[in-house]
């Protein structure tokens, strides 16, 4: 039986992990490869690197981070942030990333999803969706540019369109829950998970191990992602997994 995946996300800027990481045990907690290794040992099922570098040099450094990670780690990882062309995808996948994730660039040019899927296969193409509840529209709307711009797309419709174009997985972030630590957005996750036939990763709002249990049992989503609670050691991947296991959720 397929197990539920726990995925830590690492924000990387100019080759360094951001979000004040508190790992005294690590030689260099700002080194993405060191932190990736740490999470791997903790039992992470996959990793996501989100490159938030603005400069061209920063983006080139990311390729290096990917290459080093692939040479060290034996678990799959996804790279997102600033992937705008088929060539950007090629660079990351050839450097050893297993999947690339696209967000704003796919909304600006949906054909990018189709091109990526045709060239590398759907399993390499993750579409990341940032969604926020709109009281006026009565549904969740998609935002681009790191949540700064509202689009005309609803999260459910865009998730369906993205999978029709060839996305192999949806990484769904609730902007309403992000940073709140009060749990994943179950209603949003349910709506998107029901609308598509590819695996969905829930993201945004994890504050403790119970929240992972809730999203896996109430929505039956495939995977859940978190960043700060792992970075700030509010819980650990091994703790989340042992609690899930005790409660009967199948994990690796």
């Amino acid at each position: 039986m397929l197990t539920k995946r726990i995925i830590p996300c690492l924000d990387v800027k100019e080759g360094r992990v951001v979000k004040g990481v508190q790992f005294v045990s690590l030689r260099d907690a700002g080194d993405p490869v060191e932190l990736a290794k740490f999470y791997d040992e903790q039992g992470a099922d996959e990793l996501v690197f989100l490159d938030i570098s603005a400069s061209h040099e920063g983006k080139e450094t990311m390729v290096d981070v990917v290459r080093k990670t692939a040479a060290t780690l034996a678990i799959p990882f996804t790279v997102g942030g600033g992937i705008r062309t088929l060539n950007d995808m090629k660079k990351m996948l050839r450097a050893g990333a297993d999947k690339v994730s696209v967000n704003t660039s796919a909304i600006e040019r949906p054909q990018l999803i189709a091109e990526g899927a045709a060239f590398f296969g759907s399993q390499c193409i993750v579409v990341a969706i940032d969604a926020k509840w709109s009281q006026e529209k009565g549904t969740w709307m998609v935002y681009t540019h790191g949540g700064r711009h509202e689009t005309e797309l609803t999260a459910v419709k865009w998730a369906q369109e993205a999978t029709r174009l060839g996305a192999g997985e949806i990484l769904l972030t609730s902007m309403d829950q992000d940073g709140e630590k009060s749990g994943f957005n179950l209603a949003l996750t349910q709506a998107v998970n029901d609308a598509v036939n590819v695996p969905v990763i829930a993201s945004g709002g994890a504050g403790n191990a119970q929240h992972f249990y809730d999203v896996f049992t109430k929505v039956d989503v495939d995977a859940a992602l978190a960043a700060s609670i792992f970075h700030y050691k509010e819980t650990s991947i091994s703790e989340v997994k042992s609690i899930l296991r005790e409660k009967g959720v199948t994990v690796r």
Partner: protein
Amino acid sequence: MKIGVIDYGMGNLYSVEQALLRLNCEVFITSDIKVLNQMDGYLLPGVGAFPDAMSRLNELGLDVYIKQLVKTNKPLLGICLGMQLLYEDSKENCLTTGLGLLTGRIQKFNDSDSQQRVRIPHMGWNPLSFTQQPSWLPDLDKEDSTHVYFVHSFLARNTTQHEVVASSTYGGQVVPGIVQKGNITGMQFHPEKSGPFGKYLLGQWVRQVRDRERQNT
């Protein structure tokens, strides 16, 4: 000991190369038959679609080359699409003839059964159950975690029991995970991405290549 990674222009070879290097293999990524002839064992990788992969192999004359490897008795390991290529044919996009080294056909997952929706691709960690012992794998400890990382939308069906070594289940369907016939082995999952157990499996496969090479020198 030299492992030839058969390069037909498909997929990400970096991770698999790194995994072999970590196991102290000399790795040659090539489509050159003269170089391939010098190898002690072969790895057939692959990401992408079956028809594209077969036409690339055919263009490079590698289909014929791989078929005659059976007679040399040198070990060959197909991973993911590389395993699927070893079968008779595939229904991915259109019906395409495969290498025909193993009995069975590649088909799409049923995307629903009576109980539940089946999400495709089959993506993530799934435990293997062993129904037999591959020649290159010593007995496993019953306590060992056998989780491996799968990512695929098509699977081998109409296989013959004695060629299927280990399987997983997904959406009520049996997924052949490790298959073997003589010197030919296939792994549907990615051993290079499957943590310590994946490393162990790849390591054991490499060990037999090394043992065989030592016997011959």
